[in-house]
């Protein structure tokens, strides 16, 4: 039996630092998705929200908050929180509901309003909270991404210029994206001139936090046929697997990895395990992928993802960006939306925004960003505490 569901409609509220209530962005994105799907809001049987932890109680119950804002109409609601994978888990909840036959049409929404400046942990001496400990010891978010980047340089021979090429590529991609926050074509020189944040990463190599919202209407294949949209883009796989013990890479916010000293335990890399399950579930391999949206929290991290997604062997990712393979017009464009480099991270909306972009690509509606003949797209993201996701969509 096929586990596919159809993506009937997608919508976004542009990313920025608008300073409005997150519900506004969610409602705008939801209404755009409903209009794009050509359905009525009252047809939605399940509202699946991705939670935000920064906007008080309404954010913790995001599903209900969005349902109320759109007008209570008796739908069932759900809220998912899974750090950067929140949107994918909200989508997974909707898919489960649809595949079980309990509902035909679901709305999935994520939106966030982010504070200005550094994200800092709550106050008070809390040595049992790893997120508190690392800040106390002087280890911030860019530290982790810089460690990965430096390791690439020392082990594989990547250069700061390679990381710059990723930024330049993504800024060219996002330049014409109406939903992107940063629309400037940066040059290698701009990157090299920007301030060092955590060696070897400079300001233009790391992503900001943004406000934004993304939504989609998903439905059963039967419902899509009924709507005359049997050829809609489909969700072919959603992977939200946890890491496996023990860890090979030190992950935020931990101060140490799990030890692999126990007999028979091998150290694993979390990021690589996410697409493995997605490929398996979809019955699709990396060679079939036409376009990808990956979590470029740093421009060096995008290169790690190429390898984790099996687009190339370990250590060869820089070659792909040097040869323009992952640029629009190349064999396998990555982050055609502009990625986090052009968006900045709006946590609960980001995983959904990735799927929105791939949907436009597979429909041939991506305008200047269009990848010719795109048939299969994959997303990848990773956040705190073992949360990550990879979604495959296909034509």
């Amino acid at each position, binding site marked *: 039996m096929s586990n596919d569901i159809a993506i009937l409609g997608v919508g976004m509220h542009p990313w920025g630092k608008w300073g409005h209530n997150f519900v506004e962005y969610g409602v705008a994105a939801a209404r755009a998705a409903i209009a794009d799907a050509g359905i009525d809001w009252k047809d939605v049987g399940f509202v699946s929200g991705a939670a935000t932890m920064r906007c008080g109680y309404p954010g913790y119950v995001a599903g209900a908050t969005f349902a109320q804002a759109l007008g209570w109409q008796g739908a069932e609601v759900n809220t998912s929180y899974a750090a950067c994978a929140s949107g994918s888990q909200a989508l997974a909840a909707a898919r489960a509901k649809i595949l079980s036959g309990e509902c035909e049409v679901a709305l999935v929404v994520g939106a966030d309003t982010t504070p200005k400046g550094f994200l800092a942990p709550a106050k008070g001496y809390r040595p049992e909270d790893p997120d508190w400990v690392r*800040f106390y010891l*002087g280890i911030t978010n860019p530290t982790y991404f810089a460690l990965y980047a430096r390791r690439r340089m020392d*082990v594989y021979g990547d250069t700061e210029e390679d990381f710059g090429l990723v930024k330049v590529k993504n800024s060219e991609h996002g330049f014409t994206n109406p939903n992107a926050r940063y629309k400037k074509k940066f040059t290698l020189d701009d990157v090299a001139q920007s301030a060092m944040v955590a060696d070897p990463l400079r300001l233009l190599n790391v992503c900001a936090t943004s406000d934004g919202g993304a939504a989609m209407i998903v439905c059963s294949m039967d419902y899509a046929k009924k709507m005359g949209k049997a050829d809609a883009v489909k969700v072919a796989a959603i992977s939200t697997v946890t890491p496996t013990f023990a860890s090979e890479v030190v992950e935020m916010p931990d101060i140490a990895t799990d030890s692999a000293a126990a007999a028979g335990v091998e150290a694993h890399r979390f990021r690589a395990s996410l697409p493995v399950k997605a490929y398996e579930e979809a019955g699709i391999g990396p060679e079939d992928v036409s376009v990808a949206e990956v979590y470029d929290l740093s421009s060096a991290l995008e290169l790690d993802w190429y390898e984790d997604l099996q687009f190339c062997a370990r250590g060869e990712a820089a070659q792909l960006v040097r040869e323009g393979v992952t640029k629009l017009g190349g064999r396998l464009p990555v982050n055609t939306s502009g990625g986090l480099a052009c968006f900045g991270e709006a946590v609960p909306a980001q995983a959904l925004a990735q799927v929105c972009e791939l949907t436009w690509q597979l429909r041939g509606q991506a305008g200047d960003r269009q990848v010719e003949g795109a048939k299969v797209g994959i997303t990848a993201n990773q956040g705190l505490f073992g949360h990550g996701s990879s979604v495959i969509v296909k034509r």
Partner: protein
Amino acid sequence: MSAKPVNAAIEGWHTLDTDKPQLLGSRCDSCGTYYFPKMLKYCRNPGCDSSDFSEVPLSRTGKIWSYTNACYKPPEPFVADDPFVPYAIAAVELAEEQMIVLGQVVKGIDVDQLKVGMDVELVLETLHETEEDTKVTWKWKPVA
């Protein structure tokens, strides 16, 4: 130097031996998995359900897995020097424990003096001072 008493910034995470300090972790009595910070309640190895642990000092030398620095002042609860002085950070692999432990690198060493695979040892250095005491923490130092 002040005559204030010296205390660990995070109590119980390392010895206060000025000559050869060690991180204090724990080890599962059943499967042998090491933990830092200490785990004394439940073993996280999926193949082990033990709740018996022994506190153990960890290897005080290791090899650099990767490294970076902090060019900007971190937010609280970090207590920064004024003016802020950038510092290097290393992720260090401990062979016996098969784990990576993060830490600042001693003052005066910047990233251009570090390399993946380099041997480092654990030392104690001041993290910050309070009215009552000097808070020290572990830092990594290249082995001469």
